């Protein structure tokens, strides 16, 4: 276990260390201490290493993550795991706005709540939120899965493409072109597998599924109210 203390080590040096792990190296496990709300902690990782961050992080923690497993013991700021490609990012506390924004792959697990725009423009990332998500979550969500154990704030899935949304609690309101859809056996199994991967215990049957009504896919004047 290699320790990096951000109170002693400049962030650029710390990130460089994490980004340049040799493929045959045995140094695959890191602990970052004293983040003190710093931004871009563990951003741009490219290798299947494990990074644990002890404390609260600022914006863009684990931004553009590839392959790595990043765990934050604390809260995370704006844009957690934004544009993640693969790997796994986990937060024991809450995440702020735009968690998992534009992510292409990988798994993001937030034990607490997120604020607005969770999964905005998601492009394949899977996100599991133990608490609730704020307004405009999954805005323009293109692909991937968002599962929320708590509630969803107003305008869920506004302007949704093909991302799949599952919410266990209350949905304050649905966004343009987002509608509730049937939960079939296929979806129950898919959600079950996602929750298992996230190591979150919940019954898929308690969730409702939301997806695109696909009415905005090609412009029709009668949809003018949605624009």
């Amino acid at each position: 276990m290699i320790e990096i203390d951000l109170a002693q080590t400049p962030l650029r040096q710390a990130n460089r260390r994490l980004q340049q792990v040799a493929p045959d190296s045995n140094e695959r496990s890191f602990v970052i201490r004293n983040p003190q709300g710093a931004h871009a902690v563990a951003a741009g990782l490219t290798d299947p290493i494990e990074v644990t961050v002890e404390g609260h992080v600022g914006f863009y923690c684990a931004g553009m993550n590839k392959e790595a497993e990043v765990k934050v013991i604390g809260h995370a700021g704006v844009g957690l795991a934004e544009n993640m490609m693969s790997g796994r990012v986990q937060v024991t506390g809450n995440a702020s706005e735009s968690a998992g924004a534009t992510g292409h792959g990988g798994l993001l697990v937030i034990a607490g709540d997120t604020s607005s725009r969770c999964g905005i423009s998601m492009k394949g990332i899977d996100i599991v939120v133990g608490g609730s998500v704020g307004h405009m979550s999954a805005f323009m969500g293109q692909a991937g899965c968002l599962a929320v154990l708590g509630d969803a704030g107003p305008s869920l899935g506004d302007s949704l493409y093909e991302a799949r949304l599952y919410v266990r609690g209350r949905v304050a309101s649905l966004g343009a072109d987002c509608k509730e859809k049937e939960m079939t056996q296929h979806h129950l199994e898919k959600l079950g597998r996602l929750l298992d991967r996230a190591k979150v215990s919940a019954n898929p049957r308690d969730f409702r599924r939301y997806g695109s009504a696909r009415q905005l896919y090609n412009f029709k004047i009668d949809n003018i109210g949605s624009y």
Partner: protein
Amino acid sequence: MCGIVGLYAKKPAFREKLGAHLAAMLVEMSDRGPDSAGVALYRAPSEAGANKLVLHAAEGSIDWQGLSQAMGTAFGEQAELSLRGSHAVVTIKAPLTALRAWLVEHYPQARIVSAGEIIEIFKEKGHPREVVKQFGLEGLSGSHGLGHTRMATESAVTTEHSHPFSTGRDLCLVHNGSLSNHNRLRARLKKAGVEIQTDNDSEVAAGYLAWRLAEGDSLNQALERGIGELDGFYTFAVGTKEGFAVLRDPIACKHAVLAETDDWVAMATEYRAIAPLPGAESAEIWEPEPGRVYVWGG
């Protein structure tokens, strides 16, 4: 565009170092606000019937000692003076309107930065680290305070354009974001008799608040009404005699975080401004919801 911070002492023991803590929070927000900085500190209440004014003038253009003596003579009362960088804090037992009139007549080049029973506002151009030093913020006590670091967007970088903007007795506002309808609103407020000195959008928000309060709204009512009338992106922190309030616009793109321990409540644009506070690691941390008014201290 900017950084805003707020700190409120829940326990009297925390007040002594309030200035030092607020200073640390402010400096953390330098990257997003390098042009100027300001604080509103609520401290050292003046006695009943007295008013505390903070005055500013161009470097060396006013003999502050002379001013406070002349003021004392004019009103037949002892005027207390303390100097903080380019600002002068004058406390005297005299009505506010009379004091304003006297200053306009005898010292027109002096600008009133804040007025009230307890508030002290200091704001200057320059890097927050320098501004904090200039006002000796680290040595000041207080019950609560707001701070602001500024990255000027559409108006100039001057002392007058810096936040906090004072909107009335013991009242002030700091703003992160960008209002989109402030020009027409400014004209409306001026017509209603509100004094607006700059073309800064945040000053319009402060003026709007002052206007609503003067019209009899409570702070909550004024801020609620503001959600409908002020267009654009904003996180506001408002300072009052008793405490402070926070409001985010309904779209809520400008970040804000709140934290609370047994000793204090803090607010900041980024968590890293809260991190240096004692007990921050175990503080309760949450974000203000959009379109909802939060008030501490009354």
